[in-house]
């Protein structure tokens, strides 16, 4: 029971995502932060208000953290299937030092 609970906690903290999810997260980081920077500069320049730039930049960064860091479900849409167990595959024999191990 305690072990199961620990497992769940570890999963939540680690927040793993699949390979497609990782690619997506990388892309999201670049696009969102880049866009926040560009928008921050141009809006600030247009309104001649440097504080607005600062706040847009910080808000964009906060939003990026929120979107990328937690393992949202859409990052885990392409789970990698495990290989079937060895016993299910016939004809494969692994020998180590003359002894059969698999």
């Amino acid at each position: 029971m305690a072990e199961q609970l620990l497992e769940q906690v570890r999963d939540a903290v680690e927040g793993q995502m699949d390979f497609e999810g990782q690619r997506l997260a990388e892309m999201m980081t670049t696009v969102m932060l880049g866009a926040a920077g560009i928008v921050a500069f141009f809006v600030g320049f247009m309104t001649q208000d440097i504080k607005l730039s600062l706040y847009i930049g910080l808000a964009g960064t906060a939003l990026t953290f929120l979107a990328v860091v937690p393992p949202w479900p859409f990052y885990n849409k392409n789970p990698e299937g495990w290989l079937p167990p060895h016993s299910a595959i016939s004809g494969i024999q692994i020998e180590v030092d003359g002894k059969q191990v698999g």
Partner: protein
Amino acid sequence: MHSTLVRVQNVFGFFTTVAFTVAAVIALSTFIHPQFPSATVQLRNVQIVRGRPNYYSYKKEEYAHIKFSLDTDLSTLFNWNTKQVFLYLKAVYPPNKAGQPHSEAIIWDAILPAASAPWHQNHYIHPDPRKSQSKNSKAKNKVKAKGKAAGLDSPYKRGELHLSDSNPKYRITDISGKLQNRTDVRLELGWNVQPWVGALTWANKNKYGVWEALEGGESDKFDFPSIGGKKKADDLATEKGQEGHRLEVGGDQPIKRGS
């Protein structure tokens, strides 16, 4: 990007890159903002008196008390990246011995805040023109309203100063202790533009791109007189400004003056 910690590190790492890049672009953007500052500096009165550098000193030195009038239009120094402008008026005079550089001493200074700067007690408060000139009060009221509308402590718009016959903030002396009968002294206006991000810039004597050189900003040459008879103390007053807090000599606490 497989785990939470790695993602936090990646996002923060790229955030620093973006922040630095935006800051660099902002710093560069000030160079496309046209500047055409102009100023007129005039000598009103100059007197030399003997005094001590401090109460306990046995050595007497000569001090120059320079009254001046100053009209500036530095409004173009204030762009979106300007935090404040430190404005100063210095007396420049040739050395006693040939081959040495000119001496420069600041007689008056002011901190002019930009709109984006938060209030600070040391920000310059422009003296009220109605107090010194009672005529033309209607016109002055109009400019006052203009300044107040912009949320300023000044009756004029940001960067505009009109001081007529102002006392200096500081009396100046020379390292030799001798100042009387010096010739070819002039007053020169200078400033630092302190940006939010980017480089500190000084008053420019030359044109750089869209930044015009300072127009005027220097007084005619004059001479320091010799020490005369008794001076009225009123003539030798220094102007501390209405900013309020200022560290006084001998005091460890800023003294609040006026309100």
